[in-house]
């Protein structure tokens, strides 16, 4: 059996479990709409008036990428919780005794998280359109590519960490401690053009800074400029490194 068909088997199982959980689809799809419902009314005002560093009317194109990254930081980044549950129930060990490739055990789970985040992205973009987001179609499509890379990276990293940490009690605070600084440093909430020099430098050491800038630029209609390219390169490279790391952790035997 190929790694792809093995991954698809695992993906199907995980996806079925997600869809079966009564909370998941509701929260998963409702959550992005809720973000917009709470942010939208404020943004309509900002978009009309224009604020420092934000050209009037561009507010939606500025905030939507940030919201997408936030969805990633609260979804795939915490996906490792499920591997801890599988470790505890013995499901993971049961699967590790089958001949299925270790990579497929990770990839099937990462695929589930990616599909969920892509679905959330579609909902968020649709609702944002209703609120007044206007952006060229290729720019919107690029959002899905960025989001896929973010989901793959965060989910793979989270699953790998889950295997290392092995307890929800340490895992959740650990990720919270990482997620909030990443969020602040990315310039998701406020543009990093406002930052003093030292903060700007620190921010440039984190991947989401480049990713969010690239996503915004894509929504402004520039698909080939250096900012989009840098954002895409950082997103793909981060995803690749995280996937590699996750795969290594999944391949370990003495756990």
């Amino acid at each position, binding site marked *: *059996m190929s790694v792809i068909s*093995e991954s698809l*088997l695992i993906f199907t*199982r995980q996806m*079925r*479990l997600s869809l*079966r*959980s009564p909370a998941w689809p509701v929260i998963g799809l409702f959550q992005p709409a809720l973000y917009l419902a709470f942010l939208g009314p404020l943004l309509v005002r900002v978009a009309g008036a224009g604020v420092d560093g934000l050209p009037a009317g561009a507010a939606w194109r500025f905030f939507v990428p940030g919201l997408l990254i936030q969805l990633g930081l609260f979804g795939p980044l915490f996906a490792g919780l499920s591997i801890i*549950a*599988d470790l505890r*129930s*013995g*499901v993971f*060990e*049961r*699967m*590790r*005794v*089958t*001949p*299925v*490739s270790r990579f497929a055990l990770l990839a099937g789970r990462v695929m589930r998280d990616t599909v969920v985040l892509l679905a959330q992205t579609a909902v968020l973009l649709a609702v944002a359109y209703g609120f007044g987001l206007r952006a060229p179609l290729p720019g919107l499509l690029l959002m899905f590519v960025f989001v896929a890379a973010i989901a793959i990276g965060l989910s793979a990293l989270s699953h790998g960490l889950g295997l290392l940490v092995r307890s929800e009690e340490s895992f959740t605070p650990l990720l919270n401690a990482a997620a909030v600084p990443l969020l602040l440093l990315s310039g998701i909430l406020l543009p990093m053009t406002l930052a003093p020099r030292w903060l700007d430098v620190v921010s440039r050491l984190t991947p989401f800074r480049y990713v969010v800038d690239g996503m915004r630029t894509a929504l402004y209609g520039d698909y080939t400029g250096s900012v989009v390219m840098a954002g895409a390169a950082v997103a793909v490279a981060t995803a690749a490194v995280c996937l590699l790391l996750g795969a290594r952790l999944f391949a370990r*035997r*003495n756990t």
Partner: protein
Amino acid sequence: MTTSGAAVPIIQATGLTHTFTVGGRTVEAVRGVDFEVRPGEIIGFLGPNGAGKTTTLRILTTLLKPTAGRATVVGVDVNADPAGVRRRIGYVAQSGGTDGNCRVAEELILQARLYGIARHDAVRRAADLCDRLDLTGLADRPMKTLSGGQRRRTDIALGLVHQPSLVFLDEPSVGLDPQSRSDLWAHIRRLRDELGTTVFLTTHYLDEADALCDRILVMNHGRVIAEGTPDALKRRISGDVISLTLGGDADRAKAVLAECPGLDEIAVSGQTVRLTAEGGERALVWLLRTADRADLDLRSVNIARPTLDDVFLALTGSSLSENDS
């Protein structure tokens, strides 16, 4: 070496060792274990809690890398080609491996497919196994709604669904009622008789080991301290205990009966002479004839075979049934 059809071992462990490190302290769970299992054997692993049975199984199923030693499983070295070993075995873990939100049949089909079995075939096998392990009515139920024993039977089905030639069952019958337990035994025997499956199981139930296993390995403190057929183990430890109750002089009887062939021990308490002897039946014939000839006033005779529990007591200094809380 296999001229008479004596097959190559399906499991061969040599100097198998595993040491855990917990918080800077080391736990020597398995300390140099050697054994062989022949194809088609049902082999039982007995030993008190913490003896190292599960750890040994986890090494043989490639979940743990041995700290030292080697093992080949179905002809494949566990260190050199773990994936090759996994293709050839089944494993049911001591604590199971089911998710409460998954459904029985669904999970069985997935498990078969993870072994590369085509979908329609997987569906058929899952249904067949549900039938054999009395899970049919439960096939579409989420596992969290199953009783403990039903869930245990699902664990077992998951380990067998791909019909491996070698299966490891870690305490398969824990939590099963007597009916399910004897169904499980019947299923295990049928696997061996019909498919030639080799079964390596651990158990704390001495009656289970006695009834089911061709051979037993007794483990204690990380070492295999005895091995043999259940009968051989029992014979080896103490021989049969024969008690003769007499109407007359027990001491005279003792003097006469002390000539008994194969006698290990003889003692008198009150009106009873108690003997331990190899091969109790033969000794009994001799004893009865001799008692008759010597005109002993024999009132009653009792012969008791040692149980595996006696064996256990003698080997480990502790009774397995007391140990198993």
